[in-house]
């Protein structure tokens, strides 16, 4: 049987705490390595044991955490987070290994924060409870605040990290309010116990007015974290001030958690809003692709080239998610994994290049590094090809799926997005050529890869190659969960056509045939038809006016906000199946509308 997920989750943090408490610098380093490598081992075992045919979550842990608030400590793995967990453990192991080769001031604290960061990221990925997700999502930022603020360049780090934290926490705190609202509204709307578990929230479908503002709060949190175009202001400063091993995990993993959030939270729980805002999100993604690409081939800082390239790549991932169909979402998940695997070695290479270019990270100071370092050149070329999505790489498969999905959803956006693929080639090759070939830079000392560096870089590059050979691994294990996650939103955005296949439905209320061409639902797309009744399935969808003050739907009859009133649903007599009159307690005769006395009815003499 498998090890409980709690061990995977808490292993890095406990190693970090032990490392902080036990004296000795080497212990902290060794414990950090052990913690992250142990987590990697566990993650691999989960990937191997994962049953691709099973529905829903696997390896579930479910305990009550805070009874009063309905928050549970629920962890689980499905096809969406499986490979992101693997990615997290791979990148943290590589990053700790890389950091272990350098010397750090206040070293114990460095590894402490790395361990906490890993646990927080894993927690956000594993959490199957909305409150738990929010807890870890917010917590994730704090260790990076310290890692950047304590180890970045002294002159600029505090301003940069304050900007980073405030930007991202603004989103996160909005998400907190939205998450609480989701659970409270779901509980009051359906008269259930307050619960934050994803499985419960998916069943309780909120009125679409509430969904809209809640979706926007969540989207703000995720878009800042990614970052996407208008909300990326913290990115250049943050990237410039992070130590490279920290930046590798930050860029490789944290942005993916945000993308994952869309798939885990927004699409399944707020399907109406996801469909409603589909075009908006696609346009944001598209603009991010174009903006990121253009910035990436105009800036000369290697870190920022990778940073803006990440903006563009995450644009593709968002594009795939909001295509709202299987191909797009599958491509997005694959691409999230790919991009993490590519960007971490890329930052490592930036470190290697800077060391060979006299400490400068500007491509104008580099050039000709490949001269005496063919192995670095080859490894870099593989990473570069993967980044520009060369046919044959897993990134190509990912982008292909994404564009296929968008092609089905919104043709025009797909056509423009294609230019992003071409631009990726431009900025990646520019980075490669300007650093490795070209004129030899003024302070460049071309030296070959050392064994210690190879220990970090080669396994990462091998992972890229392996994935290029067998991307089906990610696709097949994820398929089932991804389809389930996007199904509600897909059915709204692109409803299956049952009405045409069925004979004309008669509305039992009016006796008139139901018009199959219903007017489009204001929340986007047409209202899906329930095949049994021929009525619109979601009769409340988008029809209820919203109180501008409270954000609550207003019940047309009362003018007050919809509240859950258990007495309003008439109880049903278990024997006759008739509704019971609340005053008399007797079943109501549907013919007369009067309460009937069942005993009297039985006493009617039979002729």
């Amino acid at each position, binding site marked *: 049987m498998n090890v409980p997920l709690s061990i995977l989750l808490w292993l890095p943090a406990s190693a970090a705490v032990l490392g902080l408490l036990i004296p000795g610098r080497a212990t902290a380093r060794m414990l950090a390595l052990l913690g992250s490598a142990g987590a990697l081992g566990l993650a691999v075992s989960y990937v191997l044991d994962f049953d691709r045919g099973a529905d829903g979550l696997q390896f579930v842990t479910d305990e009550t955490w*805070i009874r009063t608030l309905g928050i549970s400590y629920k962890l689980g793995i499905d096809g969406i987070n499986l490979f992101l967990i693997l990615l997290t453990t791979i990148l943290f192991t590589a990053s700790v290994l890389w950091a272990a080769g350098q010397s750090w001031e206040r070293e114990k604290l460095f590894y402490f924060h790395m361990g906490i960061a890993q646990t927080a990221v894993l927690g956000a990925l594993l959490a199957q409870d909305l409150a738990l997700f929010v807890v870890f999502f917010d917590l994730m930022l704090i260790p990076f605040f310290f890692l950047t603020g304590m180890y970045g360049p002294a002159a600029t780090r*505090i301003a940069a990290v304050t900007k980073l934290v405030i930007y991202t926490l603004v989103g996160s705190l909005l998400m907190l309010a939205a998450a609480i609202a989701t659970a409270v509204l779901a509980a009051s709307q359906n008269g259930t116990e307050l619960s934050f578990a994803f499985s419960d929230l998916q069943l309780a479908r909120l009125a679409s007015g509430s969904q809209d503002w809640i979706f926007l709060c969540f989207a703000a949190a995720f878009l800042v974290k990614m970052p996407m175009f208008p909300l990326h202001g913290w990115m250049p400063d943050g990237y410039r001030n992070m130590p490279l091993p920290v930046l590798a995990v930050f860029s490789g993993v944290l942005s993916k958690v945000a993308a994952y959030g869309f798939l885990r939270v927004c699409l399944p729980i707020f399907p109406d809003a996801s469909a409603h805002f589909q075009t908006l999100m696609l346009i944001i993604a598209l603009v991010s692709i174009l903006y990121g690409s253009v910035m990436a081939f105009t800036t000369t800082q290697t870190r920022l080239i990778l940073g803006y390239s990440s903006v563009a790549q995450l644009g593709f991932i968002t594009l795939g998610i909001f295509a709202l169909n299987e191909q797009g979402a599958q491509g997005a998940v694959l691409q999230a994994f790919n991009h993490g695997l590519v960007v971490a070695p890329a930052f490592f290479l930036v470190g290697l290049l800077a060391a060979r270019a006299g400490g400068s990270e500007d491509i104008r100071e580099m050039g000709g590094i490949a001269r005496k370092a063919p192995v670095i050149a080859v490894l870099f070329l593989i990473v570069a090809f993967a980044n520009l999505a060369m046919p044959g790489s897993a990134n190509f498969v990912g982008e292909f799926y994404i564009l296929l999905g968008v092609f089905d959803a919104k043709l025009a956006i797909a056509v423009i997005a294609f230019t992003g693929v071409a631009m990726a080639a431009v900025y990646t090759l520019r980075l490669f050529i300007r650093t490795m070939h070209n004129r030899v830079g003024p302070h460049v000392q071309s030296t070959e890869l050392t064994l210690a560096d190879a220990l970090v870089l080669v396994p990462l590059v091998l992972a890229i190659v392996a994935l290029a050979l067998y991307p089906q691994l990610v696709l097949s294990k994820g398929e089932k969960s991804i389809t389930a996650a996007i199904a509600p939103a897909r059915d709204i955005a692109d409803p299956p056509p049952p009405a045409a296949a069925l004979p004309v439905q008669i509305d039992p209320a009016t006796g008139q045939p139901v018009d199959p061409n219903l007017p489009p639902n204001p929340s986007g797309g047409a209202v899906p038809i329930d095949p049994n009744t021929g009525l619109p399935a979601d009769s409340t969808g988008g029809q209820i006016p919203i109180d501008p003050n409270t954000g609550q739907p207003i019940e047309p009859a009362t003018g007050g906000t919809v509240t859950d009133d258990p007495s309003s649903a008439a109880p049903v007599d278990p024997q006759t199946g008739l509704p019971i009159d609340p005053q008399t307690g007797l079943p109501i005769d549907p013919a007369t509308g009067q309460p009937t006395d069942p005993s009297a009815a039985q006493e009617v003499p039979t002729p």
Partner: protein
Amino acid sequence: MTPRAVPDTPDIDFAGLSPLLALLAGAVIVLMVGLLRSRAAREHGVPFLAFSALATSLGLTIWQLDTTKPLIAGALQIDGLGTVLNLLFVGAGMATVLLSWRALAPRESAHGEFYALLLTSIAGMLVLAWSTNLVTVFLGLELLSIPLYVLCATEMRRASSLESGLKYLIVGSLGSAVFLYGLALIYGATGSTDFSGIAAANSSGDLSSDVLMLTGIGLCVVGLCFKASVAPFHQWTPDVYQGAPTPVTAFMAVATKAAAFGVFLRLFDVALIDSSLTWAPMLAALAAITIIVGNVGALGQSSLKRMLAYSSVAQAGYMLAGVVVTSELGVRATVFYLAVYLVMNLAAFAVIIARERETIHGDDIAAVEGLGVSRPVLATVMTISMLALAGIPATGGFIGKFFLISATVDGNYAWLGVVIVIGSMISLGYYLKVIAAMWMRGAPDRTTSTAVSAGPRPALAGGSDEAAALEDAELPKAHWEVVAVGVVCAVLIVAAGVVPQPLFDLVQRCGDAFTNLV
């Protein structure tokens, strides 16, 4: 005419009153012992006795934990809300005694008076938390406030301390007078001083448009807002907090706030619950203003005490949101937040007091620069406190805000929940500044100076070199009890964030004080 019969002596429940009696007896004994000639008796005996009186009161409160009954013929009532709040007052009192044990203020005034005033003030809070009658409310409020006016001015050789005491006296008296006027008008409108009588008059007659009643409610809100430093009646707070001796500031920040919110909950959610339509929107607006004003005000402060003063204004706004929603969930969320707020602030003030004794910077933010290297324990305590105040997960502050926001959404005040969130965003600006000062500034020079113990200190960019040199010039390390208060509070903050259920179970008891809430 027959002479009127001598009324029966009121039925006094001494068991129920025992926590209050312990405090008052303690105050008398402490005052007496403070007159002894022996220096040791005054400097150490008096704080010890004060601490024992508080511990006795705490024990007696726990003994009465599940009691709900009227005391003194219905003028006071011991119930869940009173008991839980009493735990908070006494806890804050014990921490304050420890923090002022070897502080300047009792030495400059007089040990006996200082601690006797402190105990009397706590007794006043207890009366306030128990009171179910307009007369006892006012009695408790004055018993709490008057000793505090004096306590603020106990560092008698520092002008700002005297100024603080005087300011607090003037503003506090104004607040009390307005409040008293409001109480009188409510009595005039309802014909009863008893909370249940007011509630009955309120629900039977139509008082929602009664001018007397409305004016009374309005004046009560204003008076209580003065006490709880709710904007726009908060202007005294930064000056008084900054000027008062820091242990007294800590006490005022946490205990007075808890007492004021105790009255808010009782008066508005019990006596005036049926006219909530008139006052809830007003309080909601005040809460929103307070959150914004407090957080924005804190941004520019370089004095930690001033910053915490503005932060306490903002926190008052958060807690007011729990009163506005008029639900039992809101009551519990407010009391939960009060408990968390208490430990968060005590932890921060403990560190400030420690640094005031260790450095020459007083309560300026420079006092904590580079603390992560020089005093990692203090820095950790302060970091946890700041993160909790900002509402970061894994701290009690997060759970507290979570609870408050869920209460606002549940009570159809979702927009107020969003305002709380916006306030938290603004607050990051100043809380992070403190954390950055501790961990990210001033560190390099200290490391080199400890690593290379011999040899000249390397020249620095930034020029805080001389200050640092002065600072290192061996002021004694802070006393253990100050650090202990900080560490205990930090542990409690994390405990409340990771295993909050016991605290939830505790505040669950508050519900029995409210009979007509949802």
